[in-house]
């Protein structure tokens, strides 16, 4: 992260986008948005727009990845070419490969893979617009899509970053803060189980700052967790109606 930039936070502690240090960006969560997927969700987190589709449990491809004693979770994090300022080639970048891995590992602790041996679940994340913190928004959406698909889960996974901008620990960095700030700490969390399933960091933090950022991120997670539950409830009511229609068909 570069050190030269305009002031990202003013003397009153207000950030360039008007938020206070511990304030989340606006969020919009929708569940069951893709007719063909077994589960799906759409999240707008700030200007991030992310769509997730889940398929499975189904046959594993290629076959040699199948496990006799458990379900295999696969995950692809992918950015649309038009999601970023300079057009991104559709071929997977090294960054996308790494994020696919850490997102998968952040979701796995929520599942019961031994319940569905010899099968696979595929989680497809499409970033339609990126504005800093896409991996967190992707995890939040992926957990909703998994829940929507109906497979049992220990808890929802929810993710949010904290970080450091100028000398202040702040919640939920957007693009400019991510690029120009001093540190970014994405965290995924299962509130009911008190389990952190993703933790990364870029930048520099003292041990105290790290601890503060971690706690702030978990507080953010808890707020989003409430929204996740609401989104699922809304979808459940909608689904009931839709299901009825389809039965009559």
């Amino acid at each position, binding site marked *: 992260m570069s050190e030269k930039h305009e002031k990202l936070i003013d003397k009153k502690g207000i950030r360039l986008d008007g938020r206070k240090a511990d304030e989340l960006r606006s969020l919009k969560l929708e569940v069951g948005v*893709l*007719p*063909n*997927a077994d589960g*799906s969700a759409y999240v707008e987190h700030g*200007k991030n*727009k992310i*769509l*997730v*589709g889940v*398929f499975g449990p*189904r046959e594993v*491809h290629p076959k040699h990845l199948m496990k006799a004693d458990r379900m295999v979770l696969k995950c*692809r994090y*992918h950015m*649309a*070419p*038009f*999601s*970023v*300022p*300079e*057009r991104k080639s*559709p*071929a997977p970048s090294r960054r996308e490969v790494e994020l696919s891995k850490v997102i998968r590992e952040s979701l796995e602790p929520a599942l019961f893979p031994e319940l569905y041996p010899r099968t696979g679940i*595929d989680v*497809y994340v*499409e970033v*339609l*617009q*990126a*504005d800093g913190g896409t991996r967190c928004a992707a995890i939040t959406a992926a957990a909703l899509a998994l829940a929507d698909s109906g497979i049992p889960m220990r808890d929802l996974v929810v993710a949010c970053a904290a970080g450091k901008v100028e000398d202040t620990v702040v919640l939920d960095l957007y693009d400019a803060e991510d690029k120009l700030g001093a540190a970014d700490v994405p965290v995924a969390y299962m509130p009911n189980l008190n389990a952190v399933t993703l933790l990364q960091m870029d930048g520099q933090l003292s041990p105290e700052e790290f601890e503060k950022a971690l706690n702030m991120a978990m507080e953010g997670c808890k707020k989003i967790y409430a929204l996740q539950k609401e989104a699922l409830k809304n979808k459940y009511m909608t689904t009931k109606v839709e299901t009825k229609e389809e039965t009559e068909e």
Partner: protein
Amino acid sequence: MSSPITKVRQRQIAQTMETGKRMDGRTLTDYREFTIEQGVIEKAEGSARVFLGKTQILVGIKVETGEPFPDTPNEGVMTVNAELVPLASPTYETGPPDETSIELARIVDRGIRESKAIDTEKLCIEPGKKVFVVFVDIYVLNYDGNLIDAAALAAMSALMNTKMPNYEIKDGELKLKQGYTQLPMKSHPVTVTIGKIGEKLIVDAAMEEEQVIDARLTMAINEEGNICAIQKGLSGYFTPQQLIEASKLAREKADEQRKKLKW
């Protein structure tokens, strides 16, 4: 629901069509309802999302600078790319573009290019050296048939929504100025795909219907009613008579849509 359908269901769909009707109540020449949302990706230079029945396609436009092709030094460049992302259907896979997505991109490209929809001469910055490059990225988000018409509609809607930066040339360097200009458009082709099943012609085949049609014919039609691009697809054939009939039907439906779209 989205997997290949049974033979019984296929027969049912085909037999219903023989009677001039369709499973979802449409006549053979009815389109499904469609909606267009423009500007859904604020950070892209242009974008549009089209819902055609349950088919859902997002097109994003990026405008960058690059070199012109040697044989058209005074013209900007357009490239069209399509991705059938795997969340759109249980049958789609990750990996490099396959023949289906390449054909889709090339049909949409041809309709826009041959109708001269974009005024590419206005995209020239410095002849032979620097021009604007318009990237049209088609993103299929849910597949329920007739991707071609939906993608062509989304691509045109996104282009009509596209802004490009104002600029000036100072000391041989491109300098961006305040504000944006609308991407210059010269024509507004409408693309219509006709399916053939036995002796019948249908429009806007849904996913299930695409599994019973023999062949399809796509036409891009411009304001003057001229044909700008054609593509026959699938493993069946048309008689010459059917082609003439299909081309007439395509022009009628294009007219109809053009009125709705006010293009």
